[in-house]
């Protein structure tokens, strides 16, 4: 079982993967939107902020990053 730290690391990884490639494994995507804990999502977004600068992403990648973080966050609140 993943600890909270690794869970948020994993979520951050999924966020970045989605941002860069525009897609992730469908199981991971469904888990992200349907099961990922809200606190872990927020922690993941902080980890990304800590590690990346704004210009590390292209415009399109940045838009995807914001989108997936926001979507996951909203879905976790909406459950």
């Amino acid at each position, binding site marked *: 079982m993943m600890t909270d730290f690794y869970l948020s690391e994993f979520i951050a990884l999924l966020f970045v993967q989605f941002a860069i490639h525009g897609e992730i494994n469908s199981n991971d995507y469904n888990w992200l939107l349907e099961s990922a804990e*809200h606190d872990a999502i*927020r922690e993941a*977004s*902080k980890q*990304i*902020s*800590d590690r*990346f*600068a*704004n210009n590390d992403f292209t415009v399109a990648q940045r*838009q995807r*990053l*914001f*989108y*997936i*973080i*926001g*979507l996951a*966050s*909203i*879905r976790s*609140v*909406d459950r």
Partner: protein
Amino acid sequence: MAKEFYFIYGTKSDIYDKNGCSILGGDVLVHDVTVTLSDNLDEKRCVYDCTSILGTYPHEIRRRLGVFIAAVKSGEDPVYFNEHRVKSLRVEQSYYKSLSHFRIIIDIDRRDVMHLHEIKNKPEKKSEHEVALMMLNYTYTGKINADDYTYLMESAWDEIDGAVRIVLDGIDFKGLKKAQQERLSSITGRMAIMEYLKRKEG
């Protein structure tokens, strides 16, 4: 420790006596104010570079300041700096460039001092409902005014979760059009990450 320079801070009206009257009166221009960390880490030093409009005024200024300096030294509680406690206050004689130029140096408790950008740029804190309204407005219209956008990106970190809950109390996310879902998701994600990024980039 290196000196840390801040900002132009306040006005002459910041210096009050215990009765709430401005020490500097109405005929003094305070045209440059800087604040540094003093050597004592508990203090910050405010330096007021002043010009008296009337040539005879420096004497009066010195007299007034002298009264307050004496009061501070005697341990009374006579002087407030915008309601902050003044630890010491003096006029720097060497700074006199002419009769009408002088410098006032005030040491105050650093905990009571804000950076200018905090005073000038810190917008009034908005409630979660107000933040939610901005997000909803953007979600539906795709438009947002510059001030609201700046606020959401730079000042609404603490309100994100509450605002999202308020938004979702009012609307069915899955019932939104695709474009609206995308806008709400994007603005939420952008808020969640932008403040940290901006802060880090300084």
